[in-house]
Each structure stands twice: as C-alpha cells, then as structure tokens.
C-alpha cells in the first residue's frame, strides 16, 4: 500500500506543471492553509466539548458523544496529537 502511494506521488510530480504550481503556491497556498487551520480550531473546540474526557478534561460525556463517536473516530488520533503537541506563538508565523 505504502509502495503504491509513493508511486502515485512520483506520477503526480511528473504531471505537475512547475510554473502553475509556483503560481498557486505564491498566490493561494497560504490562503488554503489558513482555511484548513480555521477548520482545525473549530473542530478542536467541538471535539473538546464532546470528547474532552479522552484527554483528561473533567467533562461528563454527554449522550451526544456516543451518537457522534462513529463520525469522529477517523479524526480522534490526529486531534489528540494536535491538542497534546506543544505550541507557541512561533507556530503561527507563516508570512
């Protein structure tokens, strides 16, 4: 599986038009990254409210946590990683 993924990445690289990619990176990539981060912060809040007990926050799991759990399972690992990772102001600086 990993091997196949790498192969497809190589193929993608060959297909990429460098000038187009540069223009996209210069003009839009920062915006896309910002949008993703905004979504991340909103997800953090929502998951903290519903599944905060998983990280040791003294939150009584509400009924809806169980109902939402199947939808949240794919994100739990990365959410935990992001929440527990040390951050400071230098993480936000991206030019």
């Amino acid at each position, binding site marked *: 599986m990993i091997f196949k993924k790498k192969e497809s990445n190589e193929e993608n690289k060959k297909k990429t038009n460098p000038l187009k990619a540069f*223009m*996209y990176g*210069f*003009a839009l990539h*920062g915006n896309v990254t910002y*949008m993703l981060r905004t979504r991340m912060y909103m997800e953090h809040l929502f998951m903290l409210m519903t599944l905060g007990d998983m990280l040791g926050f003294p939150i009584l799991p509400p009924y809806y946590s169980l109902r939402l759990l199947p939808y949240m399972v794919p994100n739990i690992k990365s959410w935990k*990683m992001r929440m527990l990772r040390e951050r400071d102001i230098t993480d936000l*600086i991206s*030019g």
Partner: protein
Amino acid sequence: MVSILATPAPYVLLGLVLYYIAYRLYSRWIDKRVWDPDPKRPTPATMYMDGVEYFPVNRYVLYGFQFKSVAALGPIVGPVLAVQYWGWLPSLLWIIIGVIFIGWAQDYSAMMLSVRNEGRSFGPITYNLVGRRARSILLSYLFIYFWLLTGAFVYILATAANGFAGTFYTIFGTLLGGVLLGQLVFKARWNIFYATILALIVVVIGYVIGYLVPFPPSNFLGTYGSIMFWAIIFAIILGIAAIVPLPTLILPFNYLAFFPAITSVALVILSALLSPLTGIGFTKSAYVGFTASFTGFPLWPLLFVTIACGAISGWHSLVSSGTTSKQVESEIDALPVGGGAMFTESIVALSSFAAISVVAVTALGANGYVIGAATLASGLFGKTLYNAFVLFFGAFLLFMGVTVEQLVIRYWRLVLADFVEERKGAIKILGNKYVATIIVLVLSLALIATFTFDYIWEYFGGTNQLFAGFALLLVATYLTKVKKPSWYTLIPGSFMLVTTISAIAYTAYLFIMHSFNTAKPLTALQQLFYTYLTSIGVTPYPIVATFDVIAFIVGVALVVLSTAMGYYLYKSIVAYRREAGVTQPIGGKTTMFKPGEDK
C-alpha cells in the same frame, strides 16, 4: 555611449551566475555532507499527516509559498540605503557573499532542523535544546522586533504615498477589490476565476484613478505633516486589517497583490539586464568610504544590518520552521524550497541594487527604488511611460509593505496576548485585540513621528539579523548534539551575533550621546521634525531628549537580551560537545545515523 561595465547589467548577471554555482555546488555539498537527506525517511508531513497542519505539498507549490512569505520590503529598502551610504560595490558584495555563505544556510537549515524535530517551530525547539529561559528571551525579543518592523515599514509606506501622488488609489482599489473578492468567494460562493476577474477590474480602476488624479499632491501639508498624515491613514488601514477575520481582507488582498508584485520584480530584473542596450548607467559611486554619506555610520558593523533581507534575514527562519517544515513532502525538497526561495529573494535585492544605482538624485528611503525601477523600465519601453511606471512601482512598494505589515501587527498582538494570558488583574486588558492593536500602532507612530528612520532602520535590521544569528546558532547546537559538522552555521552565526550586537550598541550609543546635545538633529531627516516643532512654537529639547533616552533603553534591552541568548546558546553547544565526548574539530568527521536515531 555608456560602457557596459558602468551599467548594472554585468553585476546583476554575475550575481545570478554565482547564485547558480553556489546552489549547485556549495549548497548541495553542505546538504549531502551535513544533513544527508534521505528521500525514504518520513518527514513530519507524511508521518503526522492530518490534512490540516501536516500534509505533503508539492515542492514547486511550497517554493512559491516560501518565496511569497519571505519577500517583503526588506530586500528593497536595505540596498537603497546602503548604496547611498557606502557606494554600490560594498552593497553588492555583501548581498552576494551574504546570501551564498549565510543567507541560504539559515533558511534551509532552520527548515531541516524543524523537519528533523517533528515539525516543531522555533519556540519549542529552543525550549528543548537550550532551555526555558532562552525561549522566554526569544519571545520577548519577538515583541520588540515586531514593533520596530512596524515603525520602519509604516514610515516607508507613508513616504511612498506622499512622494508619489496617486499611488494611494492603487492600494485603495486593491483593498476594495480584496473585500469584494472575499465576499464573492467566501459568502456568495462564486467561482474564484470570475471573482478574480471582477476584483482585478476594481484594481485596474484604482490604477487609472491614481494615474489621472494625482491628488492630494506631495507635501500638501508640508513634508512632516504629509508624511504623518499618510502614516496615520496606513495605521488605520493596517489596524482594521489586523482585527477583522483574515478572509475578509488580508487573504484576498494578498492574493490580488500577487499579480502586480510578480510582474514588477520580473520587469526590473529584465530592465536591469538589458540596461547596456538602453544606455542607463551608474550614477552612484562604487565606494564612498568606510564612513557613510549622510549619516556617518561606519561600514562595519552597520552595512551588515542595513542590508538585511536579501543577504540574510531572521524572519525567514520563523517562516521556514513555522508552516513550511510541516508540509515538506520529502527531505530532498528542503534545499530547493528553503535555499531556493532565499536565492530568489536575493534576486529581488539585486533588482533593488540595480534600481537605486542608476538614480541621479538622493532618495534615502524606498522611494529611490521606485524612481530607479521606473528609470530602468522606461528606458526599455519608452520614456513617455515614466510616470505610469512610477505609479506601477510605487504601488508595488505599497503592496509589499501592506501584505506583510498587516500580518505582523496581528502577530504582535498575539505575542502580547500570550504574555498577559496567565497574569491576573488589569494588565489582562492588554490581551484584548483592540487594545493590543491600538497600542502597537500608537507606539509605531511615535517612532515615526521623531523622524529618525535611518536609525530605526538600523535597530530593525539589527534585531532581524540577530534573530538570524540565533537561528544559525540554534542549528549549530542541534548539529553538535547529533554529532554532525556545525561549522557552516556556527561561524556565520557567531559573525552575525557579534556584528549585530555591535551595530545595535553603536546606534544606542549615538542616541544617548545625542540626548546630551539635542541642539543639532541626529540626521538631515530629523531636521524636518525640528522645523515642525519650531513652527508650532515648541522647543525640540525635551521631546527629542526623551525619545533619545527611550531609544537608548530599547537598544540596551536588545543588547542585554541578545547577549543572554548568545550565552545560553554557546553554553548549550559546549555542553552538548562535552556530553557527546566530541574531541575532533567543529568541522570533524560526519557520523552516520539511522533514521530516527537523532531525535
């Protein structure tokens, strides 16, 4: 007919050739010998992929993003000042030698350092490698750095808007276009292509109005009053931009500014390379002397802080380790992305060098760039287009300043909020976004009001370069820890540390000496401030002396903070060398590691 050697073309071309050689040979040699990138070793982007912060991005996209993030007013203003202070030759040599031996190494190494440390940014890495106090110093340092940066950049924006009547409409048109684009794309869900077309039409209307209606004229309130008027206007715009959500203004504005910005850089480089055909030659001296014209600054250490970005800049290490390192797809991409973007930014500095070196008048500030770029471009495309090019490059200057500055003010208020977060009492009000934004803007306007731009620029350049020195020494600390050769960052890092601390100390010394004798202004520029005060019946002495003392205290604080930071960094390097039992020279043999062993 102007001799080809008396035009900027051969020197710009020489720079481009040397950059290519340095990238192909020296950079790759360091890359292989020190970091030994392995395409099979997973990067943070692939290891912790979450599709949000960590995700692999194509190298060309990342290169474009990195270049956009590092390029601002720094590589434009620095050469403009230095060429007029010391002559074009020392400036050219520092730009080329600086980027080849120090600049790229910092950007690339900061990125690799973060990649090898799970994509962490500089704060946590400093904490891990050097300790808690060092990180606190780093954050305090950022606080002063952003303030000085805001003061210097807003002054440049104000002088450009005042110097070139009508340019304000270009930025106003782009701001309106940005707001429109934001609403159309994010609220009305328009297709970005059509929204861009519509927004660009608004931008073009701004250009046309600026060209046809050059109002208000330059110095309409007197030089001092007009510059302060524009400084307040820009402070208000930047303040609003720093408070409203990014998609409302900053993101669409930065996107729209991309189109004229990229065209401007390409146009100046092309015009400079073809200058032998247009017969536009140097008007500035190759070498003025060790002591600068106009200000009397000594070449060492002040040349090395006057030209900051373009040769080396601490801002880049923050960007390299902040976002880019989390998205590097493969370790082998770090060199073209980090190093490549730095070399490209240095080309912007070369374009600024070319522009100012053909300007006949004295223009201490970014305005020299606009006049020079318009002279080069109109020489190539027709003298009748000179005024149009002045507007075009003036707008470019404003775009470069505004795009970065609106983010810097936002970061500044976040740093302030971080400081007061865990404190109790009334001080917590400083964390409020409105209060913090107003504080930074008022403090920056106070810097501008004294008209000591030449000196503030040295402070700003000094803090920027010191940050680069910290970054290089932090990399050396890490390399020592993992038993890799560290000389290529330790030597430049030490040079930058000594040079920039000396530069800041010297500038602080000038301020305090001036406080004892304020009868004469610090520079010709400050004469305007003196004239203004006298015209409203105020004696300059108490105001100027107070400012001098405050500026001196800021300088001393910077020197103390940076000396302490340097102490902690060297202490860590020595400690890691002892811990590792390293007895061979700093450039000693490379130890090979298995993947993951060096964490």
